[in-house]
C-alpha cells in the first residue's frame, strides 16, 4: 500500500519536469519553423528590394525632326541609302532643343544621355514607314543605362552614378519637364538578352524554358508512366526487378551535373546534335526527371485500393482493361502532381545545361526546338556575373519571374491534388 503511494509520489514529482520537457520540445519546433520562415522572408525581401526597380524603364520622349538632309537620306525605301544614313543626328538635335543650356561643345555629353541603340529605333521606324521622312514625330526613346541608374538610384550607395555633374543637372531638368520619364518596363518582357542593361529582356529565356520544358514533359511523362505501370502491375517480383527498383531510387539522388556530362557525351559528341538547343536540354532534363516521375507514379498506382482492381477482375475485365480503365484514371492525378513537381525542379536547373552549351549569350528569341536558347535560371546566372551594375537589379527581377513560375506550378500541383484526387 505504502509502496503504491510512494510510486504515485515519484510520478507526481516528475510530472512537472515532464511537462517542462514537452514544452521545451514544442518550443524547439516553433524555433525551427521561425528560422526557416525568417530565412525565406530575408531572401524574398532582398530579392524584391533589389529587383523591383528593374520593372521600371526610363524613357526620353521628344519631338524629332526626321530631316533627310541632316541624315544624308532622301529616299527611305532605298536600302543602300538607309545603310549609310546617320540616324543619330536628328535625335541629338531634338534632345539639344530640350536642354536650353547645352551648346555645340556639349554634343557628346548630350549624346551620352541617349541609349546607344536609340538610333535603331528611328531606323526601324523609317524602314517600316518610309513616308515619315521629312516629318516631325513624337518619339519615345530608351534612355542610356547611366541615366536610368541615375533616375532610379540617385543617392543609393550600392550604385555608382556614371553621369557628370552637368549631365545630372540636365537630367534633373528633363525629369521636371517630363521629357525624361519612367514607366512600366515592357522591354524587359519583350526582348532577349542584351549587353545593354536597359535593352535586356527575359522573353528569350522564358521561351527557351518553355521549349525545353515541353520536350522534357513530352518525353518524360509517357516514359515515366509506362515504366511505373509495368513495374507496378505487370513485372514479376524477382531479383532483376528489385535491382531495377533500387537503381531508379539511386538515380533520383544522382547530382544533376552528371546528367549534363552524359548529355554532352551521348547526345552531342556521339549523335552529333547541335549545342545550346532546347531539344538537347530537354533530353538531359528528361533523364533527370524520369526517376522522380517513376517513383511518384508508382506511389500513385499503389494508392489505388485493391478493391477496385478486384471488382473489375470480378466482372471479367482483363489485366489490361483493369489497368487502363480503372487504375490509370484513378492514379492519374497523383502522377500529374508528381510530374509537375519534377518539372518545377527541372525548370530551376542550371548545372546540367552548363555542359551542353545552354549557358550562352543569346540575343534572338528562339523560334523553335533547334534554335539556340537559354533558360531562366541560366539568365539569372549570366546577369549576376556581368560587370554592369544595372544587371544586378535585372538578375533579381529574373529571379522573381522564375519564382513566380515555380510557385504557380506548385500551386497547380496542389490544386490538382485537391480537385481531382479521390479519397477512399
Amino acid at each position, binding site marked *: 500500500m505504502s509502496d503504491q503511494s510512494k510510486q504515485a509520489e515519484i510520478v507526481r514529482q516528475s510530472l512537472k519536469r515532464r511537462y517542462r520537457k514537452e514544452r521545451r520540445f514544442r518550443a524547439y519546433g516553433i524555433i525551427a519553423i521561425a528560422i526557416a520562415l525568417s530565412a525565406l522572408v530575408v531572401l524574398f525581401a532582398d530579392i524584391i528590394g533589389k529587383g523591383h526597380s528593374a520593372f521600371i524603364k526610363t524613357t526620353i520622349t521628344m519631338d524629332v525632326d526626321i530631316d533627310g538632309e541632316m541624315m544624308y537620306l532622301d529616299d527611305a525605301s532605298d536600302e543602300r541609302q538607309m545603310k549609310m544614313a546617320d540616324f543619330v543626328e536628328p535625335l541629338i538635335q531634338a534632345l539639344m532643343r530640350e536642354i536650353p543650356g547645352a551648346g555645340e561643345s556639349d554634343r557628346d555629353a548630350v549624346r551620352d544621355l541617349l541609349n546607344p541603340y536609340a538610333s535603331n529605333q528611328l531606323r526601324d521606324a523609317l524602314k517600316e514607314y518610309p513616308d515619315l521622312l521629312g516629318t516631325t514625330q513624337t518619339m519615345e526613346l530608351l534612355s542610356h543605362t547611366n541615366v536610368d541608374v541615375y533616375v532610379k538610384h540617385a543617392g543609393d550607395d550600392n550604385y555608382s552614378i556614371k553621369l557628370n555633374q552637368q549631365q545630372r543637372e540636365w537630367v534633373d531638368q528633363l525629369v521636371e519637364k517630363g521629357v525624361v520619364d519612367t514607366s512600366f518596363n515592357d522591354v524587359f518582357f519583350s526582348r532577349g538578352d542584351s549587353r545593354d542593361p536597359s535593352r535586356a529582356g527575359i522573353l528569350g529565356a522564358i521561351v527557351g524554358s518553355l521549349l525545353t520544358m515541353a520536350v522534357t514533359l513530352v518525353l518524360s511523362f509517357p516514359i515515366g508512366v509506362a515504366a511505373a505501370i509495368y513495374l507496378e502491375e505487370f513485372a514479376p517480383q524477382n531479383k532483376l526487378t528489385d535491382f531495377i527498383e533500387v537503381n531508379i531510387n539511386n538515380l533520383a539522388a544522382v547530382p544533376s551535373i552528371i546528367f549534363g556530362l552524359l548529355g554532352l557525351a551521348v547526345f552531342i559528341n556521339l549523335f552529333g546534335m547541335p549545342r545550346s538547343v532546347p531539344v538537347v536540354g530537354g533530353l538531359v532534363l528528361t533523364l533527370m526527371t524520369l526517376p522522380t516521375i517513376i517513383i511518384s507514379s508508382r506511389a500513385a498506382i499503389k494508392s489505388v485500393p485493391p478493391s477496385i482492381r478486384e471488382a473489375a477482375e470480378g466482372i471479367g475485365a482483363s489485366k489490361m482493361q483493369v489497368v487502363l480503365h480503372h487504375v490509370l484514371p484513378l492514379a492519374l492525378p497523383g502522377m500529374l502532381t508528381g510530374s509537375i513537381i519534377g518539372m518545377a525542379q527541372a525548370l530551376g536547373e542550371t548545372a546540367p545545361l552548363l555542359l551542353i552549351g545552354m549557358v*550562352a549569350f543569346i540575343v534572338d528569341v528562339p523560334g523553335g*526546338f533547334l534554335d539556340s536558347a537559354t533558360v531562366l535560371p541560366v539568365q539569372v546566372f549570366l546577369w549576376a556575373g556581368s560587370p554592369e551594375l544595372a544587371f544586378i537589379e535585372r538578375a533579381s527581377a529574373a529571379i522573381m519571374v522564375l519564382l513566380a513560375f515555380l510557385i504557380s506550378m506548385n500551386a497547380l500541383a496542389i490544386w490538382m491534388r485537391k480537385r481531382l484526387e479521390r479519397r477512399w
Partner: protein
Amino acid sequence: MKLKTAIASVAVAGSIAALSTPAMARDTISIVGSSTVYPFATVVAERFGSNTDFPTPKLESTGSGGGLKLFCQGIGTQHPDITNASRRMKPSEFDLCQSNGVEDITEFRIGSDGIVIASSRDADNLELTLEQLFLALGKEVPSPDDESKLVPNPYEKWSDIDASLPNVAIRVMGPPPTSGTRDSFNELALQGGCEDLPAVADMDEDQMESVCQSIREDGAFIEAGENDNLIVQKLIDDDSMYGVFGYSFLEENSDRLQAATLNGKVPTAEAIAADDYPVARSLFFYVKKAHVGVVPGIKEYAAEFTGVGAMGPNGYLKTVGLIVPPRDALMDLQDKAENLPNLSKDELM
C-alpha cells in the same frame, strides 16, 4: 478512348522531337572561349546582329582553354566557328587543331587587358613592387633570414614584408585556377616578381615555374570563383581585403574601388595599352576558316569586330573597357579580316 488518343498524340510528338535532331546546317555563328573577352565579344555580336541581316551570334563563356579545346575538336557545324582567348594559343593546342582537321585558322589580337589589385576606397592603398607581391602570395618564398633558402610563406601582415606597407593582415581574393585571369596573374605578376630572386635564379625553367607560380594555400589567398562581382562586393564590405581581377571591373566600379600601383605604375588604359603597366596581357580571337561560307556572316563579324566603329579611338568597345590597339595595329587587323591569313605554328613558338 480519349486517354488513348492523348497517349498516342504524346508519343507521336515525342518521336518527332527525337527524330528531327540529326546534325543540320546552322545559320547562327557559334562563338566560345574566354570569360575575359566575353564582355567585349557580346557587345560586338549584338551590334552585328542589330546592324546586319545576319542572326545575332551565340556566345558561350567557357574559359580560354575550354574554348580552344572545343574549337579544335573538328570541322562541322556542331563545332564552334570562333573562339576567344585571353592568352595566345599554345603550340600543343595548335597541334590538336591540326590533328582534328582544323588546319586553317586566322588569329586576331584585339587589344589588351590589365590585371589589377584593387581595394575599397576606404582602405590603405598598396604601393607594391612585383617582388613584394610574390613575397605576399607565393607558397614558398625566400626566408627573411637567409635569402638563398626557400621556406613556407611566413608573412602574415603586409607590413612584415616592408615597413612602408600597411599594417593589416594579407588577405587577397582572386580567380580560381581555371580562369585565364589566374594564368596571366601567375605568369606576369608572380613569376615577374620571383624570377630574379637569388633563391630561384639558378633553377631550371620547370622548377622555377613551379616555385614562382604556386600561390599560398594557408588562407591568405582566397579563391572566389569566376564571379568578379562577388569580389567587388566583398572588397567594399571589408576594408582590409584586396582583390585581383580584370581592368574592366575596376573601371566599372571606379568610384568605389582604387587600384594598387605595381612597380610604381598606376593601371590606366594608356599604361596598359603601352605595356607600361607590368601585368597587362593581350586578348585574341581565332576564326576557323573552313566554316567561312558555310555558316553565314563569319567574315562580316570579323570585319565588325576590327572596324573603326568598334575598336577605333571612339569605338564602342572602348566605352565597355577594352584597351584598344593603336591605329596601325588596327589597320593590320582590318587587312586580316579581309584576307584571313593562316596562322602557322612558327608564330606560336
